């Protein structure tokens, strides 16, 4: 068979958040060039937060991303609280875990049902599927509304919510509102299983491609870690203190991307749902375990397309946990406690959480008046792009070997990029020091 030469060039990959291009060149069957270009315009958050007041930091940095606004806000709150030594109450921690779960639900359902599902059915979009897969789309719309209604109740808005403040919450939900959330989650179970089953029935459409890599995520002994946990690497099998994050993320810049990259033990590492599941398999229990079994998921799984499966496992996990967290809050009242007192002082604070797309770090320095004088945000997507490009470099020869056409290769590359659920608007706000 003659060795093939072709080029795959996709400008502005669709159904991903933000602007990214794919460029692959194969000459005589050999991969010559392979690039993931991030072409998002730089907004420079870290530069313009300098001069802003401490209490505004969560309110400003949540605007880095519309989809993971709550994750940025939670991380920012932790960073500000760390800088001033603010201890939040147990009730605040429970409520924040619940808020985080609600956003994971919203983001994962949006991603799996709206952005990934069209690939499984070769449809251009979820809009086109409304006529062909009406039940699935209606179920997805209802599920997403439940997650959004949870956020509305808990924090006052789906995107850039006013309810969370440094030290706690500006408003606590009423008992009956928490009961309502529990009811909504119960009512949504059937829709959730419909979504899970449809994807499971089509799981053979995820290419059986594997590439072993390093997985970095938070790790926790008891609670599956979104809001709380320690940075952990699957390669070193060690946890790291927040203060050590720069030794783990090791950012660098390539000229074809406005988004910085990261590496630790290898040329790149992965963060996100699959990394969290691979690093915390003992915490996948109950409904989440049932979902994992439907896909035959076992940790560690090295198929990057399985990040979508990880998202469904986490969706089931958050669905169940949210009900328990509502109960815990109801048991406490919830007490309408004011935010913890803040005593402004000079210093630095670091906040670390898991955003839907992976490890998220905010690092601020304040002067004695609580004015921000330095900021650094490490975003999941900028940690993932190097790993994604390494996957592309390996999957292209793998697909060429199987005699796939350039059109098919383009399809699987776009699908691969979507599997990572890149959040590119976020990714361009990193700092290089």
């Amino acid at each position, binding site marked *: 068979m003659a060795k093939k030469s072709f080029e795959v060039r996709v400008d502005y990959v*669709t*159904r991903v*958040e*933000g*602007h990214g291009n794919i460029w692959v060149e194969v000459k005589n069957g050999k991969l010559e060039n392979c690039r993931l270009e991030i072409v*998002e*315009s*730089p*907004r*420079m958050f*870290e*530069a*313009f*937060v*300098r*001069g*802003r007041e401490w209490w*505004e930091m969560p*309110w*400003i940095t949540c*605007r*880095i*991303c*519309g*989809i993971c606004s709550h994750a940025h806000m939670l991380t920012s709150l932790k960073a500000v609280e760390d800088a001033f030594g603010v201890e939040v109450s147990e009730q605040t921690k429970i409520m924040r875990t619940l808020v985080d779960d609600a956003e994971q639900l919203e983001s994962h359902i949006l991603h799996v049902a*709206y*952005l990934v599902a*069209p690939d499984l059915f070769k449809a*251009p*979009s*979820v*809009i086109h599927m*409304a006529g062909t897969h009406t039940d699935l*789309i*209606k179920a997805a*719309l*209802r599920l*997403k*509304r439940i997650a*959004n209604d949870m956020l509305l109740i808990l924090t*006052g*808005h*789906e*995107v*850039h*919510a*006013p*309810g969370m403040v440094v030290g706690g919450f*500006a*408003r606590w939900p009423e008992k009956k509102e928490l009961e309502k959330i529990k009811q909504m989650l119960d009512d949504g179970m059937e829709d959730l299983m419909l979504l899970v089953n449809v994807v499971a029935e089509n799981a053979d459409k995820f290419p059986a491609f594997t590439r072993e890599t390093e997985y970095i995520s938070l790790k926790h002994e008891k609670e599956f870690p979104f809001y709380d946990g320690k940075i952990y690497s699957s390669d070193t099998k060690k946890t790291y203190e927040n203060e050590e994050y720069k030794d783990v993320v090791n950012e660098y*810049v390539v*000229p074809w991307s*406005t988004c910085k990259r990261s590496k630790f033990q290898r040329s790149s590492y992965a963060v996100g749902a699959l990394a969290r599941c691979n690093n915390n398999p003992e915490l996948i229990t109950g409904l989440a375990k049932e979902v994992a079994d439907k896909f035959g998921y076992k940790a560690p799984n090295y198929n990057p397309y399985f990040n979508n499966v990880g998202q469904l496992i986490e969706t089931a996990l958050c669905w169940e946990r949210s009900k328990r967290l509502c109960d815990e809050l109801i048991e406490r009242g919830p007490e309408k406690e004011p935010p913890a007192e803040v005593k402004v002082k000079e210093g630095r604070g670091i906040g670390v959480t898991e955003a839907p797309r992976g490890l998220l770090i905010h690092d601020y320095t304040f002067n004695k008046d609580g004015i921000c004088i330095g900021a650094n945000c490490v975003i999941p997507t900028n940690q993932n792009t190097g790993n994604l490009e390494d996957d592309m470099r390996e999957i292209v020869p793998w697909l060429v070997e199987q005699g796939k056409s350039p059109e098919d290769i383009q399809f699987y590359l776009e699908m691969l990029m979507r599997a990572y659920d890149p959040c590119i*608007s*976020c990714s361009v*706000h*990193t*700092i*290089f*020091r």
Partner: protein
Amino acid sequence: MAKPKVAFFDFSCCEGCQLMVLNCEPELLDLLGHIEIVNFREASTEKRDDYEIAFIEGSIITPHDVERLKAIREKAQVLVALGACAHTGGLNKLRNFQDTEEAKKYVYGDSAKYFEVLPRVMSVPEVVKTDLVIPGCPINRFEFLSIVKQVLLGTIPTLPNYPVCVECKLKENECLMLKGQICLGPITRAGCDARCPSYGFPCTGCRGMVDDPHLEAEQIILSKRGLTVQDLLRRYRLFYGYSEVVK
């Protein structure tokens, strides 16, 4: 009657306003019965250029953004700025109060040279003729639906020209100013249903100012709270970066 063809385009922003469109879950299928979406990169692989109504999200930050926006303007019969970043430049304009080169270097270090940006962040109306705006950071999805409905019916939507306080009072919220907080509700355009004050968080002005804001009165009240001119400017610059007031 053929359904109007609609496109969504994103520039520099968090894409939260597009997300608020997708967050219209109960209304989405009905909405799709009345319009044909031909270009919506965040949601669809389909990309067509035969649109009549273009929604523009995000601020204009690079020379390439300017060219792209002008090309869209030439094709669209109706161009709508969707959300604060498009409408006023939003908080992206905070960068305009810093030295661009220094800011670039702060974020990208030696690699700053790879990235070309305009000396000032611009809103959509600063670059092209804009037919309609939908304010807010992010937009209010009910206002979005109402404006779309009016456009489809051929009427010209108007925005509320009264301050957030009006909506806040109608909701019988306790005034945050009276509780000692600094609130920009008295000078900010309503239409958000007093989203933030209703959750105990003061208004920070994301929808921009009303047409004829009582700036002096606001300044007197806030200076009584001990705010210096510099404090006041800092607050105003967050979302009023478009206005002469903050320069």
